[in-house]
């Protein structure tokens, strides 16, 4: 029997948490606008704006904290025949992709990711449900992972 939890699990860069927290702050900007509007609007009772603000701050702090935990939860493990990716706090998942079933490996980085120097690697199989993404790798590691995966995939007969 194979123990899936054992082995040399790699984690992802903590810069990913930074990137996601910046995105979170951007998402809070419209909330700030709404709070201001509510504050200046005469017909709205006075307590509404502070309440919305407090709720937003509480949710923001909770999201801030959960982002840290979620980023730490990402991990991947390259074994001899397959790649394992795990993620999630509330909803945990573990994806096992045999190298022979990989169809292509995507390496993507958005503008914010590029500014921070992180990249995400996504594996595609013929199944749409595979869902194997490793976000938050440094570009060098991402390139190495991609090359290793491509090599491992090529040497095996592709599925479908």
């Amino acid at each position: 029997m194979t123990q899936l939890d054992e082995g040399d699990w790699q984690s992802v860069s903590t810069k990913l948490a930074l990137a996601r927290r910046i995105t979170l702050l951007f998402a809070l900007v419209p909330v700030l606008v709404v709070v201001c509007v509510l504050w200046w609007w005469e017909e709205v009772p006075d307590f509404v704006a502070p309440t919305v603000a407090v709720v937003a701050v509480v949710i923001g702090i909770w999201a801030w904290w959960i982002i840290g935990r979620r980023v730490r939860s990402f991990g991947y493990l390259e074994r001899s025949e397959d790649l394992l990716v795990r993620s999630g706090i509330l909803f945990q998942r573990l994806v096992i992709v045999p190298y022979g079933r990989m169809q292509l490996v995507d390496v993507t980085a958005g503008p914010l990711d590029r500014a921070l120097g992180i990249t995400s690697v996504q594996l595609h199989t013929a199944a749409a449900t595979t869902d194997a993404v490793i976000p938050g790798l440094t570009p060098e590691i991402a390139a190495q992972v991609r090359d290793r995966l491509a090599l491992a995939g090529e040497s095996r007969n592709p599925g479908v």
Partner: protein
Amino acid sequence: MLNEDGPWRVNPISPLVHAARSVPVWLGLVFVGASAVGYVWGPLTILLSVFIIVTLAGIVALFQFVNWQRLTFWFDDQGDFRVDSGVLTRQQRRIQLSRVQAVDVVQPLVARLFSMAEITIEVAGTGESRVRLSFLTLNEAHLLRETILTRARGAAPDGSTVARPDEVTVLSRVPWPTLAVSLLLRTSTAGLLILTAVILAIAIRREGWSGLGLALITGGVPILTVFAEFIRYYGFTVSEAEDGLRLRFGLLKTEHRTIPAGRVQAIEIVEPLLWRRKDWVRVRVNIAGVGKASDSSSSSNGGETLLTPVATRMEALALVSRLMPSLNFESMEWHSAPRRAWRRSPVQYPMLAIGWTDSFFTARRGRINRRTAVIPIARAQSVRWTQGAWERALNLASVHVDSTPGPVRISGLHLDAEFAKTVAGEQAERCAAQVR
């Protein structure tokens, strides 16, 4: 047509068929338009309407004639199938025959009056990967289909192939009363009909007739869907062909489909609650390159992924064994979800189970619509282990074996967490070991 080398054209009367197909639309438009301006129907106005309809149909025919001139298809020197089309935007398509998934002959109602057929070619790949040629005579369509399939199999066809009917043995045929009863007894239909009865009863008792509008919807929708599906799947026949199973169905529009045995990725046997007395089942399949991810709901409009709309269990298993000969449910080792799973899924927990043999993996779920999904482990794309918050509180987890897009999902839900992880590991190992 196919005797000489190409390029070939579709049948010259196709523009007329297209025009004839458009007549109902013009008819409707004229009626709506006439009643909008408050015409009084007299000989003159009828004559005028006929004139308008004929003119509009004539324009369609003219347009389609230009299209017809520009549409050519042939096999090129590399053995690819080429289709050039379009008037303003020229489109040149090149179809690698090795990528052809299925070639179907379809006869829409109007085309059937002209004994014409259209041919659709499914190609592996995403996006608009379907090529449609309309119209050919029925014989030509079958001949072209045969030629493409023969070439796709790699056998060189002798140039002078004559039309020959497919030599097929009929495996099963759904009698129309069975189809009608089964559609009425489907869980969603039956549920809506019962709801309608309840609404009617309340409306009559309370004499509150406002509820009748709702009853029209809850009663009308299922009757319409049953009617539509009955017409669509009427005379559903499965025959055995060289390359897999051939399906033929339809009352107004005859559809032909081929399920190539080699491309079937997964199979699901569905047993709705009200069908169990009769031991009826429905069988759906995932076919590489055919299904869409959005087909995953229980809606049965995916005619492309249906193996049979209704069959007795024995018939269904016989059909399944044509596609997966080594599948044997008896030798399956079943493992049920633990009793505590009832807290997560109080209704379906007694049905939840997974099973496997050396080369197959099965997952069963659903109490009202019992579903048994089977995948040859060599066809699995990846294996997932998932655990939601509530599952974790109960020390449960689920195993999913991913197949290509289609209606069949193989999910072993709410198993013991440790056991699920072990199974996921083992199945992934088996999957990786099977080189196809």
